[in-house]
């Protein structure tokens, strides 16, 4: 499963890559640290799943986020989006925005692993 990381934390990509190495079937294909480059990254790497930092720098407000996610689904219709967030309220918002799942960064990485495995077994939602 091809994963694209959209997060502006500089130390996360290398760690995530090593971490994903321990999860069979997952590959980190790309990293995007800015909103402006995200659509281009999706076009370039054709990820199956997007790990999307809910507070990614460059997102001005909620409608902007909604537009961005709609655009990404247009580019990659079978793209699964997992929101990474720190606040429960943001998680609820993620559901409203029709993301596939959200994972709190305050939780242990096992929570993320659980979500990723679930999507890996289920397969693409939009064949």
């Amino acid at each position: 499963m091809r994963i694209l990381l959209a997060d502006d934390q500089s130390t996360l990509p290398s760690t995530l890559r090593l971490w994903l190495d321990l999860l069979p079937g997952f590959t980190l294909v790309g990293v995007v640290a800015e909103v402006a480059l995200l659509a281009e990254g999706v076009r370039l790497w054709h990820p199956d799943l997007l790990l999307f930092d809910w507070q990614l720098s460059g997102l001005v407000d909620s409608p902007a986020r909604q537009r961005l996610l709609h655009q990404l689904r247009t580019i990659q219709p079978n793209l699964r989006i997992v929101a990474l967030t720190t606040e429960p309220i943001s998680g609820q918002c993620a559901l409203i925005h029709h993301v596939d799942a959200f994972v709190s960064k305050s939780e242990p990485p096992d929570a993320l692993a659980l979500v990723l495995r679930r999507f890996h077994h289920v397969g693409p939602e939009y064949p």
Partner: protein
Amino acid sequence: MRRLAAWFPTRYRVTSAQPTLRFLLVITFSGVALALVALLSLIVGQISARQLEQDARQSLTLLAAEMAERMAHELTERYSEIVLIATTDLALRTPGLSLISKGVVLEKLQELHPDYIWIGLMDPAGTVLVATDNQLVGLSVADRIWFQAGREAPFLGDVREGVLLAQALATKVNRQDQLRLVDFAAPVVSDDGQLLGVLAAHLDWQWARRLEQQVLRPVLPASDVEIFVTDQAGSALLTPADWQGALLDPTTLDLAQGTGTLVDVWPDQRRYVTSFATISARGPLANLQWLILARQPLRTAYAPAWQTQWQIFRIGALFAALFALVAWWLANRITHQLVTLTHAAEAIRQGQGHAIPILAGTAEVATLSTSLNQLIADLTTATESERNRIARELHDSVTQTLFSTSMLADVLPKIWESDSVLGRTKLEELRLAVRGALAEMRTLLLELRPAAIADADLHQLIRQLADATTGRTGITVTWRIEGEVQLAPDHKVVIYRTLQEALNNIVKHAEATTARLLLRLQRDAIALIIADDGHGFTPDHVTGDHFGLRMMRERIQASGGDLRIESNPDEGTILYAEWPARR
């Protein structure tokens, strides 16, 4: 007021030392009312007392003058009567007429004026020929002054003691007091001018007592008004019955005025309103130098004033009590809504309430309740904003770092097994990240308590910022402080904020791998230099909406310093912040 409030039940106090507004209002209103009443009654009492003193002076002056006038009038009448009878009565002027006929004249005269205690007709040698009640008949009065004067001309004598007559009249006049007499005498002369005898009469001094009673009759007994008759040497001629004491010294009076009044202390040490009048020394009264004194105790004269004053005070006190009740009702009405607001505010403070009720009793209370409500809403919003900001800071820093380090800790054992060199590298990354997270936490704690920045050690602050940046971003931050100058707290805060903003800019925009900080503390200047190896930028192209950079510059300039930026694309950036030394 606090001491006073301590005597009242605690429900009238906010704390043991603070009286409630309601209590203060009631005490103030009733206190002021009572004070005004007391003042009013005092003023009225004083005004009344002055008026009464004037009235007493006038009425006593009138009394004294009336007494003097009556005495003068009656003495003159008696004198004229004796003269008229002596010069015109045929029975007395006819030598051959019997003594019985002459005695009838005398008896009639005494009957007409009972105040004559004795009337007699003497022959020219001084032997009493005939007299009322046949007293002293046959005795010689030739040596009496009144007889000797009466032989020559009509005579009115001063009051004197009647010793001889008292003995003769002992059976008729049964009195405890001394017999005093006023003598009248007139020669009885025939038509040819021959002296036939002397007509004399002794007026009993009780006559003066009768006049005194007549004069005092209209005066209320409770007024304690008394009348004295003295000679001008101060000897008492007529005093109130049963009176004992000393008289006022006449020299204190301005007798030349004839009448007068004064308030003075008498020998009994009491203060009296005293008026005086003298007998008009004219005609037959020329020999008389009598002084009439009318006095009234000042306390009695003022009594109506004090009574009025006390009545006003009692009525006023009643009104003050009523006023206190009204004040109590009014205070309750005024403070009711304030108390409601106070309780609501107190409940919010204790975490048991969320809003202030909007009250519409009065404009002020409505404004107050609305303002308080808005204030609390603003405070709540501000608190929530601050919490959100801190939460965002946590997300941007500590949570992100911990998420990453947690992931790294998960994979580190496997990495170590397969590649120990990579394992060591990742362990170092983990160490730096944890260290950075700790620094981030300390930085956040400083943000929660900004005043602590001024108290913190500058070395620690810079280390904290550097570690946090490295831990969060992996950018290597080196730093150095040169020199030792004690910085003012506000200057320290400015340097901290400048560093913080500069590192944030490097992380967000520079894409740098290293950053170097140098703080030069010299006596003549303070310099802060921040350099990075990022992609740089053209300072002239920085737009005005670059809020962080603008704030940094304004903060430095407000503290008396200056900011200079050197940067070019692909050549990194150097910030120079400089301050002149503070004296």
